[in-house]
């Protein structure tokens, strides 16, 4: 097996291992119902993490994800109360996400500002914009939202794939195609691997950087749409600190934060691992939510150390 698949293999092994441990500890855990629920409950995190995967693959970072999710949610809710169809407002907000992401990408490349700082300003800006739109939780009442919540595809066993999970899986396929079968995807890996070499080889740095953050904005806005439809409301504090969960999902999925190494599909499993941990702690019943934070942090630690030693021993960048 090619060594570059090792982190991905480790992620999938941990996911299966955790699922089996859960099955051993709790009755009814090892079922398609639990799996379907994890997919649906974590769909928005995984969708946002897909965008973050591209940004991180290019060697950057996007901290504005959580605020974008909140902003999209409150805008959709307010537009709904003004009589807009959710699909129309969703389309508008996704366009906004792409435009805002492209703006961030442009500033990063033009001003040579670290992505960390400018997306941090984006975090404040969009969260503040949420508060300016509304300070209350606004419900979304529309037939479409009811239809969205009711739609499901039955799985073998008692499980179902809800619409959120379907949107997530479709976004995953799109992300895999973009990352691995387009020139743009190759350019992203090239910039993340070594920006200077990529420039010398003729990779269009500015266009690719703008594209990467626009894609990140697209996925965060889509995650916001899914979150708003899933909770059928908009809440100005929705999605707080979600950027960290998204980044954690990407790292758990085997993508190196240094950029250039990783697989989009790993992010799916990274997000599912986070979902599994909280599901297991909820099944346990007696444990405090503090344990979700501590076990996520602990698992993150194990993965980071694992990656560190994999990179140290095989020089993944050279082989990928």
């Amino acid at each position: 097996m090619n060594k570059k698949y090792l982190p991905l293999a480790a992620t999938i092994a941990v996911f299966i291992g955790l699922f089996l441990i859960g099955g051993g500890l709790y009755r009814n855990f090892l079922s398609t119902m639990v799996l379907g629920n994890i997919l649906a409950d974590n769909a928005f995190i995984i969708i946002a993490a897909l965008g973050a995967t591209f940004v991180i693959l290019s060697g950057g970072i996007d901290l504005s994800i959580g605020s974008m999710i909140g902003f999209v949610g409150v805008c959709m809710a307010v537009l709904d109360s003004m009589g807009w169809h959710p699909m129309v407002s969703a389309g508008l907000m996704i366009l906004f996400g792409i435009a805002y992401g492209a703006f961030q990408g442009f500033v990063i490349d033009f001003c040579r500002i670290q992505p960390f700082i400018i997306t941090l300003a984006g975090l404040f800006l969009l969260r503040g914009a949420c508060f300016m739109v509304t300070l209350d939780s606004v419900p979304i009442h529309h037939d479409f939202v009811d239809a969205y919540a009711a739609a499901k595809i039955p799985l073998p066993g008692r499980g179902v794939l809800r619409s959120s999970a379907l949107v997530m899986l479709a976004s995953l396929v799109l992300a895999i195609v973009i990352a691995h079968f387009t020139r743009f995807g190759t350019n992203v890996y090239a910039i993340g691997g070594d920006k200077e070499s990529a420039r010398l080889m003729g990779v269009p740095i500015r266009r690719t950087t703008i594209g990467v953050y626009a894609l990140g904005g697209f996925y965060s806005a889509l995650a916001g749409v899914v979150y708003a439809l899933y909770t059928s409301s908009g809440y100005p504090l929705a999605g707080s600190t979600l950027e960290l969960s998204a980044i954690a999902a990407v790292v758990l999925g085997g993508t190196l934060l240094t950029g250039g190494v990783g697989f989009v599909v790993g992010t799916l499993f990274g997000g599912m691992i986070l979902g599994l941990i909280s599901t297991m702690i909820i099944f346990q019943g007696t444990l405090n939510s503090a344990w979700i934070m501590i076990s996520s942090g602990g698992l993150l630690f194990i993965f980071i150390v694992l990656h560190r030693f994999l990179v140290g021993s095989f020089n993944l960048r050279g082989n990928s």
Partner: protein
Amino acid sequence: MSDRGTLNRIIALRHNRAVWPLLALALILIVDGFISPNFFDIRIVEGRLFGNLIDILYRAVPAALIALGMAVVIGTKGIDLSVGSIIAICGAVIAWRIQAGDPHLLILFYALVAGAVCGVWNGFLVAGLGIQPIIATLVLMVAGRGIGLLINLFYGGTNPSFESELLQGLSTGNIWLIPTRLFVALGLFLALWALIRRTALGLFIEAVGGNAAASNLAGVNSRLVTFFAYVICGVMAAAAGVIMTADTHTSDPVSVAMYSELDAILAVVIGGASLAGGRVFLGMTVIGALVIQALTTSILISGLPPEYNLVIKALVVMAVLFLQSDNARSAISRLIPGGSR
């Protein structure tokens, strides 16, 4: 001719790193002066100085302390995302030990030790295992508030409150009309300044941040220096944690010091240091923290709804970052005739 020389000298000033942040601070204060005519008044109320300027200094103290530690870490080309979590842990430790009945001076020591231990953990991950700082400190950032909650859960219940004359005196008391925490901040600033600028440590930190491999070859123990930077940052965060926790009389691990790591990093960047490492500007970092607090205060006194706070803060930060970028500055210079070099 001399007029021309003065003008040129003023124009040349824009290349001085201290000018832009100070200009930003002055601009905010001047705007405040227009919005509220009594802005600069300072009077004595209940045995302490009272006024907007004092208030800005007073409220900026925790952020400035965190930012000072962060400046040291950023100097080594690192970053510490876990400072908010360190503050949460510190608060939990304080509440726990006060309920256990320890002498309060000892508790102050415990809180600082808790911060140092967190710093040792981060330093171990970054310097010992060689993990990228942003990920290494993400671990404690994710887990730290959970640890604080657990300490609360085992000793004292949810959000335990406490009374401590010593700690609250340090945080909210005053000496000779002046808030005590300003003395605390000044003392810590001078201690850190002496440690960085009056020993070789500062030079080593900037060398490691500039080029770790080269400084290793020159005989600097890069790992040890990096390790120490994280311990310093942990202790400074703990000091801020003592002040913040004593201010609210409670330990609230979930929401205390939310986004404080981001404010601290902003303060360092506004102070002119690059996240690429190699520079530690302690004085400018304090100015950066003051810019952020002055902005927050002026939004409050301007009568704008508080929900505008974040948006305005973000826009100002973007403007400052934009002005710090060479590309953007030369684009502006081209627009202003006579300003071009």
